[in-house]
């Protein structure tokens, strides 16, 4: 879909139709003290100056580090075809395709993305994406609140602490009863369930990289009349039990592992799928496939009456935007990998992580915290504060992992290590040798 901004002539014509001299007159209702003052921008730069300046800023990034950081975002290889295809003019626009007449290609790509998310999660319906894994988790939680008309949410402490912070800030004024607890043991969950419980939020693999069986937990929440929500790593879904197999009603997660680069603050990709019973409570856009009057296949945005531009204060959610370009990158990535390729990629991640576990636990006084099974990430307990170890490793050119003490004060010595298919045996060797040297 093309987007052409207004030309100066267009603007002049619109101003004249409105009987105005300048665009600024449109803003005069806003009190002067609330309007922007002088912008005070520095003088313009020449192209070589801009290139030099930006290269200098880019040089301050730590992209040369060998990356064992994870915690929800992973350093995966992105095939060159992903960027080449999403950069095509037909796709590279921030504007969402309201007009089916001129957006069939974009709409088809979103439909195929939804299909891929349904296949990965095993659930019936997916939307055309949300901002990121955290907002997707918030939206899933609110679906449970709306559907059950209850106010209590139980969130396991092994759900990403970043997502739990987001959930708290989004719901701060919604008068919900947000209960954070370690419910890994289903018996611990039973004591928290009651007739007010709208939903249970779990993560798989959990924040510490451990693959979980959530089926008993979801059976329990269903018995209490609530919904089961799972946040998951889409790459792990190639080998793990799917959300549908474990009885989840809603699956969400961060789509970054599917062909999106690591970048501070995004743009990332929130995916969401749910059972058919929840289709109408699902926020965001949904693309449907239909046929036109002549029987030809066509795509269009569907169920739009749930959306804020039609239902306004009654909208399913006030987040109606999506991450269409990131979703496109994900579906291209999945297409390039293929069904078997994705399984092999996931297995390669697990193999590399297993090798790293072997190397790290061979270091004296370094111990595994969990018993597994793991996906591509695990936590080890160091004999010293993990923050100290990590900062010393930075000097060796290695981002050794995520020190868990930042979010779990009782885990100051625990380090979360992620190992993707990009980490060679040699690099894993550097990590082990480097870590042994700083301990």
């Amino acid at each position, binding site marked *: 879909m093309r987007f052409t901004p207004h030309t100066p002539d267009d603007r002049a014509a619109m101003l004249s139709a409105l009987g105005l001299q300048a665009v600024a007159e449109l803003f005069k209702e806003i009190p002067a003290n609330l309007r922007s003052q002088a912008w005070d921008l520095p003088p313009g730069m020449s192209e070589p100056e801009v290139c030099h300046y930006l290269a200098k800023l880019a040089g301050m990034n730590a992209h040369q580090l060998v990356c064992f950081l994870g915690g929800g975002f992973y350093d995966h290889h992105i095939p060159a075809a992903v960027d080449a295809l999403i950069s095509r003019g037909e796709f590279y626009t921030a504007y969402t395709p309201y007009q089916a007449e001129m957006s069939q290609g974009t709409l088809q790509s979103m439909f195929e993305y939804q299909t891929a998310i349904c296949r990965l999660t095993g659930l019936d319906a997916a939307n055309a994406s949300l901002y990121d894994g955290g907002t997707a988790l918030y939206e899933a939680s609110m679906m449970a609140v709306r559907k059950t008309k209850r106010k209590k949410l139980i969130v396991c402490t092994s759900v990403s602490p970043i997502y739990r912070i987001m959930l708290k800030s989004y719901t701060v004024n919604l008068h919900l009863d947000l209960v954070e607890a370690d419910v890994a043991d289903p018996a611990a969950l039973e004591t928290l369930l009651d007739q007010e419980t709208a939903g249970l939020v779990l993560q798989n693999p959990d924040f510490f990289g451990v693959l979980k069986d959530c089926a008993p937990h979801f059976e329990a929440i269903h018995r209490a009349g609530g919904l089961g929500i799972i946040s998951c790593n889409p790459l792990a879904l190639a080998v793990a039990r799917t959300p549908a197999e474990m009885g989840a009603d809603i699956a969400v997660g961060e789509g970054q592992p599917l062909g999106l680069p690591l970048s501070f603050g995004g743009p990332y990709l929130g995916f969401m799928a749910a059972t058919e019973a929840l289709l109408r409570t699902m926020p965001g856009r949904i693309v449907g496939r239909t046929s036109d009057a002549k029987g030809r296949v066509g795509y269009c945005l569907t*169920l739009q*009456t749930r959306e804020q531009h039609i239902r306004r204060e*009654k909208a399913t959610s006030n987040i109606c935007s999506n991450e269409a370009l990131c979703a496109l990158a994900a579906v291209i990535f999945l297409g390039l990998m293929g069904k078997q390729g994705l399984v092999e990629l996931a297995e390669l991640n697990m193999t590399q992580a297993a090798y790293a576990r072997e190397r790290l636990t061979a270091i004296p006084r370094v111990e595994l915290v969990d018993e597994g099974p793991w996906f591509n990430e695990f936590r080890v307990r160091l004999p010293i504060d993990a923050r100290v170890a990590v900062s010393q490793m930075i000097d060796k050119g290695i981002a050794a992992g995520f020190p868990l003490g930042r979010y779990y004060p009782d885990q100051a010595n625990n380090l979360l290590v992620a190992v993707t298919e990009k980490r060679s045996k040699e690099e894993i060797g550097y990590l082990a040798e480097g870590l042994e040297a700083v301990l």
Partner: protein
Amino acid sequence: MSEAMQVPEGLYYTKEHEWVRVEGDLAVVGLTHFAQDQLGDITYVDLPEVGAALEQMGEMCVVESVKAAADVYSPLGGVVAEVNAALDDAPELINKDCYGKGWLVKLGEFDRAEFDNLLDSAAYRKLLSERE
């Protein structure tokens, strides 16, 4: 336009275009012919739960059509005794037979005094004619 709109006798109406009719101990509620005509093809009805307590002119359910989503208000206070489950698979019944098979909800425990706040067919017909 209102000439073509069906407004059966013996029913009570709201200004928001719902109708209600007493059948034994229950009050049957639906959308008027005018309402379904304004909405166009109805695609979904979000029915309330059986047992839900409603207030007169409180929100009862939401109907979605190809054009819009609209709140439906309960003509009477009461408790939802039955919902028209056939609408889950065939919401178009509201368009086809809004005073018959396209009913929405049956209410129990209503207060007959609340009928005083509703319109009879003549008053509702007048309301429709004034819209022109």
